[in-house]
C-alpha cells in the first residue's frame, strides 16, 4: 500500500512539474527567442521483490529545451546579411533620394546653366540674359555645395552610427560573457540552465544584427564568439571590447579596432556583415565615391568655364575673370608620419582626373603613388621638386622638406572640390561673351575661305599681339607677326585643311573653304567695341558639352548621369539583397521557431494529458485509500 501511495505521489509530483513546464511554455508562447521546454519523464528505479522489480513511480529526470544549432546559425548569418544590406540600402537611399530628381537634379541644373549660356550667346548685350546666366551659375554652384554639405551630414551620421554600433556590440559582448560565466557555473551542477541559454541565444541573435558572428560552444556550456577573420569578441567569461580608432589620414573617418593583450589591432577591413559591416560598405561604396564624383563635376564645370572666361572679353572690354572658385586637392598626412615633408598637389589635365583617392608613400628613397580604389600603382614622371613635379593621374605633386621612410599621404583630388564651389562674378558685365582675339579677312582675298572661329587657347600666356596668316600655293600658310608689309617674323607655318584650326601664339583660327594663294587673314586683339561678339560664349557652350573627362569619353553631363545611375545601381542591389536576405532570415526564423518554439495546441494537449495523468494518479490514491479501508473493515 505504501508503495502504491508513494508511487502515486511520485506521479502527482511529476505531473505537477510537467504541468509547470507546460504552463511556462504557454506563458512564453509569444516570447521571442524562447525555446519550448520539455519535462523528460523517466520511471523511478524498481524495487526488488521476489517476483521481480516493481517500479516505484515516475520522476522528471530533466527539463530540456528544444535547440537546433544549424537553424540557429542560419538565422544569425541571414540576420547579419540582412542587417548589412539593409543598412547599406538605407544609407544609399539617402544619396539616391538626394540625386534622383529628373526635373531639379544635377543634370537639369547643368542643362539650365548651358541654356543660360545659350541665351547670352543669342543676346550677348542683354543684361537680363547675362544676369540669368549668373543666377543659373550661382544656383548650380549652390546645388553642388548643398549636395556636398548633405553628404557631409550623412557621413557624420554614419560615423556616429558606427560609434553607437560599436558600443552596442560591446554591451552585448559583455552581457554574453557574464551569461557564459553563469551558465558555466550552473552547468557544473549537472542540469542545463535553459533560461540562461535562451537569454544568451537571444543576445547572440541580437549581436548578429550588428556584426557577422561565429559561435563555438565550449564543454562547460559557455559559447565563444568570433567576428571578422576569427577575432575573439567573447571567449568564455571574457569580452574583448571593440574600439573606434580615428583614421590614420582622415581622423573623422573611424576605423574599428579590437583590444588584445598588446594593444589595439585595426580590424576594419575584416568587418563584414551586420549593421556595422553595412555602414562601412556604405562609406566605401556610396558616400565617399559620390562626394568624389560630385567634386569632379564641380572641378570640370569650374575649369571649363573659367578657362573660357579668361579667353574672353567682358562687356567692359577687359579680359574675363574666373567665374567659379573650386575647392583644392586635399592632402592628408598619415598620423604616423615622422618626416618633415610637406606635400602640395594641384590638378593638371581634366581628362586624366579620376574620382579615386590616392596614397603617396615614400619607400626605398622614392615616392610611390597608389590608386586606393583599384589598389594599382600609378606610373608617375618627375621627381617631385618644384621644377619637376611628380605627375600622374591628372595630378601634379610637389614635395618640400625631408620625408622619413614609409611616410605616406592620402590625396583626395576631388573630395573637397564641391564644398568650395562658389560664384565669383558679381556683375553681369563680367561675363566674357566676346573673344579676346578677332580675325579679319584681307580685303583683296580672292579665295572662298571664310572665318569660322577664332579664339584664345591659352589665356594666361596670350600676349595680345597682331598676326597675319598668309596663304601660299596648295594651302601652305605662314603666320607672321604684325599686320604691316613687309611681314614681320614668321611665327608658324603649316598646311591648311578646311575646318582644322591654325594654331599659333596661344590662339587658334579656324577657316572653312579654300583660300587662294596670296589671301591673308589678320588675327588681332578683339576690339573692346565688339560687345555683340558671342564667339567666346559659343566656345564655352561647346567646352561644357564636349567630352572632356575620362580621356575624352565623358562629358560633364554624362558624368552626372553616370553618377546617378551608379548610385541607383548600388542602392537597388542593396535593396534587392536586403529583401532577399530578409526572406531567407524570415524562413530561417520560421524554421527555427517551428523546431524550437511553442505550439499552443500542442501545449493544450499536454495540459490535458498531464491533467488526465494527474487525475488518474489522484484516483489511484483514492483507490489505495478504498483498498486500505476495505482491508481495515475486513480486519475490524
Amino acid at each position, binding site marked *: 500500500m505504501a508503495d502504491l501511495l508513494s508511487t502515486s505521489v511520485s506521479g502527482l509530483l511529476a505531473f505537477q512539474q510537467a504541468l509547470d513546464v507546460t504552463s511556462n511554455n504557454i506563458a512564453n508562447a509569444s516570447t521571442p527567442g524562447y525555446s519550448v521546454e520539455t519535462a523528460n519523464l523517466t520511471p523511478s528505479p524498481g524495487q526488488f521483490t521476489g517476483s521481480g522489480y516493481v517500479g516505484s513511480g515516475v520522476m522528471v529526470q530533466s527539463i530540456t529545451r528544444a535547440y537546433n544549432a544549424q537553424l540557429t546559425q542560419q538565422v544569425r548569418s541571414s540576420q547579419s546579411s540582412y542587417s548589412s544590406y539593409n543598412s547599406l540600402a538605407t544609407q544609399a537611399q539617402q544619396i539616391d533620394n538626394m540625386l534622383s530628381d*529628373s526635373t531639379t537634379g544635377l543634370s537639369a541644373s547643368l542643362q539650365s546653366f548651358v541654356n543660360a549660356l545659350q541665351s547670352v550667346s543669342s543676346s550677348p548685350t542683354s543684361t537680363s540674359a547675362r544676369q540669368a546666366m549668373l543666377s543659373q551659375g550661382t544656383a548650380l554652384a549652390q546645388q553642388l555645395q548643398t549636395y556636398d554639405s548633405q553628404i557631409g551630414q550623412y557621413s557624420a551620421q554614419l560615423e556616429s552610427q558606427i560609434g553607437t554600433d560599436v558600443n552596442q556590440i560591446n554591451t552585448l559582448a559583455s552581457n554574453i560573457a557574464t551569461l557564459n560565466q553563469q551558465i558555466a557555473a550552473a552547468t557544473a551542477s549537472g542540469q542545463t540552465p535553459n533560461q540562461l541559454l535562451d537569454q544568451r541565444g537571444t543576445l547572440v541573435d541580437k549581436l548578429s544584427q550588428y556584426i557577422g558572428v561565429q559561435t563555438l560552444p565550449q564543454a562547460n556550456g559557455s559559447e565563444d564568439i568570433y567576428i571578422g577573420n576569427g577575432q575573439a569578441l567573447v571567449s568564455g567569461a571574457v569580452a574583448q571590447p571593440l574600439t573606434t580608432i580615428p583614421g590614420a589620414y582622415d581622423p573623422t573617418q573611424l576605423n574599428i579596432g579590437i583590444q588584445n593583450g598588446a594593444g589595439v589591432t585595426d580590424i576594419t577591413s575584416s568587418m563584414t556583415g551586420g549593421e556595422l559591416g553595412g555602414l562601412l560598405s556604405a562609406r566605401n561604396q556610396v558616400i565617399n565615391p559620390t562626394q568624389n564624383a560630385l567634386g569632379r563635376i564641380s572641378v570640370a564645370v569650374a575649369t571649363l568655364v573659367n578657362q573660357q572666361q579668361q579667353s574672353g572679353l567682358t562687356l567692359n572690354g577687359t579680359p574675363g575673370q574666373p567665374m567659379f572658385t573650386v575647392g583644392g586637392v586635399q592632402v592628408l598626412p598619415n598620423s604616423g608620419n615622422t618626416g618633415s615633408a610637406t606635400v602640395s598637389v594641384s590638378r593638371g589635365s581634366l581628362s586624366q582626373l579620376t574620382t579615386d583617392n590616392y596614397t603617396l608613400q615614400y619607400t626605398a628613397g622614392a615616392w610611390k603613388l597608389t590608386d586606393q580604389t583599384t589598389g594599382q600603382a600609378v606610373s608617375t614622371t618627375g621627381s617631385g621638386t618644384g621644377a619637376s613635379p611628380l605627375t600622374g593621374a591628372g595630378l601634379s605633386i610637389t614635395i618640400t622638406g625631408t620625408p622619413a621612410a614609409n611616410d605616406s599621404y592620402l590625396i583626395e583630388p576631388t573630395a573637397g572640390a564641391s564644398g568650395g564651389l562658389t560664384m565669383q562674378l558679381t556683375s553681369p558685365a563680367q561675363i566674357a561673351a566676346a573673344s579676346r582675339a578677332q580675325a579679319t579677312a584681307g580685303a583683296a582675298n580672292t579665295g572662298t575661305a571664310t572665318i569660322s572661329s577664332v579664339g584664345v587657347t591659352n589665356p594666361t600666356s596670350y600676349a595680345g599681339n597682331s598676326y597675319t596668316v598668309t596663304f601660299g600655293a596648295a594651302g601652305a600658310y605662314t603666320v607672321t607677326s604684325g599686320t604691316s608689309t613687309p611681314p614681320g617674323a614668321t611665327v608658324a607655318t603649316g598646311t591648311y585643311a578646311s575646318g582644322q584650326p591654325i594654331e599659333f601664339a596661344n590662339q587658334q583660327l579656324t577657316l572653312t573653304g579654300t583660300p587662294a594663294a596670296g589671301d591673308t587673314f589678320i588675327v588681332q586683339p578683339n576690339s573692346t567695341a565688339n560687345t*555683340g561678339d558671342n564667339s567666346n560664349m559659343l566656345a564655352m557652350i561647346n567646352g561644357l558639352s564636349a567630352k572632356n573627362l575620362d580621356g575624352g569619353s565623358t562629358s560633364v553631363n554624362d558624368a552626372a548621369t553616370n553618377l546617378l545611375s551608379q548610385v541607383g545601381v548600388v542602392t537597388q542591389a542593396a535593396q534587392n539583397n536586403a529583401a532577399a536576405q530578409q526572406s531567407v532570415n524570415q524562413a530561417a526564423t*520560421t524554421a527555427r521557431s517551428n523546431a524550437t518554439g511553442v505550439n499552443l495546441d500542442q501545449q493544450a494537449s499536454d495540459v490535458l494529458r498531464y491533467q488526465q495523468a494527474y487525475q488518474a494518479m489522484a484516483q489511484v490514491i483514492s483507490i489505495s485509500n478504498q483498498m486500505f479501508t476495505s482491508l481495515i473493515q475486513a480486519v475490524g
Partner: protein
Amino acid sequence: MTISTLSFQMNAVNQMDALQTAMSKTQTQLSTGKQIQTAADNPVGMSQVVQLNTQLSASQQYVTNGTLATTGLNLESQALTDATNTLQSARSLIVEANNGALNASQRQAIATQLTQMQQQLVSIGNRQDGQGNYLFSGYAAGTQPFAQNGTAVSYQGANQVNQVQLSADQSISTGDTGSSVFMNIPAGNGTFTTAAASGNTGTASVGNGTLTNPSAWVPGNYTITFGTGNTYQITNSAGASVSSGTYSPDAGGAFSISFNGAQLSFNGKPAVNDQFTVDAAGSASVFSTIAGAISALTSPTLNAAQVTTQLNGMLQQMDGALNNFNQVSASVGARLNAVATASSSAQSTQTDLQTTISKISDTNYAAATTQLSTEELALQAAQASYASMMQLTLFKYI
C-alpha cells in the same frame, strides 16, 4: 510538421507587412504618376529619363535661340527691302539725270534728292533692334555702324557677325555686317571700272565695259590715250604700251576697243590726247556710289560726256548694290527658313522625347490600378484568414 504559434503569428504579420509595403509603393506610383521615384527603382530607366530631359531642355533652348534670331533676321529683311526701294528710286533719278536734256538746275534738284536718299540709306544702315543693338554693326553691337561726314560715309562696325546654335550641329548667322551689305560691293563690272580723265575735251563717253575673255585679263590699271586719226594707245600703270590701234566709229559715232579680254564701248568723238582709264575693280560702297553721282551732277567742271561716263559707272555700281541687297535678302530668307525648319523639327523631336520619357517613367494607370486592387484583395484575405485562424485554438474547447 509543427508550426510554432509565435512563427505563425510572425509569418502572418510579415506577409501583411509585405503586402502593405507593396500597396504603398503602388499607391505612390498612382499618386505621383511616376513609376520611377528614384534611381534605385530603375537605374537604367532613370538615367535615360535624365538624359532625355536634358535633350528636351536643350531642344527647347534651341527653339528659343531660333525665335530670337528670327526677330533680328526679320528686322534685317525689312531693312534690306527698304534699302532696295530707296536705291531703286535713286537709280531712276540717275537714269533721268543721265538724259543730256537736263539743265544744270534740274541736275542740281536731282542731286539734292539723291543727297536725301543717301541719308535715308545711312539711317536704314544704322537701324537698331528692340534692345538697342545695331542691326548692321556685327560684333560691335553698340557701335553705330555708319558715320556720315558730308557725302562721305564710313563703316565703323565689326566685320564679323554672331552665330547662334539651332541644334547641336547647326548654326546660323544672326545678321550681316554693314560692310558686307552696304560697303564692299564690287565696283564697276566686278573686274574693272572705267572713267574719263577730267581734262578731256572731246565728246566721247565710255561705257562700263565687259570682260569678254576672262582668261586673257591681266589685272592692273590701264590708260587709253587717243591720238590723231582715230588712233589710240593703251598703257599699263608702268607706262608700258599694252596695245594700240585705230578705232572705226559707226554711223552714230559709237565704237569699241578691245584689249586683254576686255571690251570698252565709246560713244562720241574723242579729242586728241583725251584719256580714259580702266582700273582694277576695288569695292565701292552704295554711299560712295550715290556720292559719286551727286558730285558728277553738281560738278561745274565736267563736260556732258564726262558726266555720262561717270553716271554710267554709278548706274552699274547701283545694279551691283541692288544685286548685293538681293543676295543678302535671299540669304536672310534662307536663314529664316532654316530657323522655321529647325524649330518644327525640334518640336516634333520634343514630342518624341516626351513620349519616350512618359513611356519610361510614367505610371501605367491600368496596370497599376489592377495591381493595387489585387494587392488590396490579397491583404484583405490575409487579414480575414489571420483573424479567423487566430480563433482556432484547442484552449477554446477545454
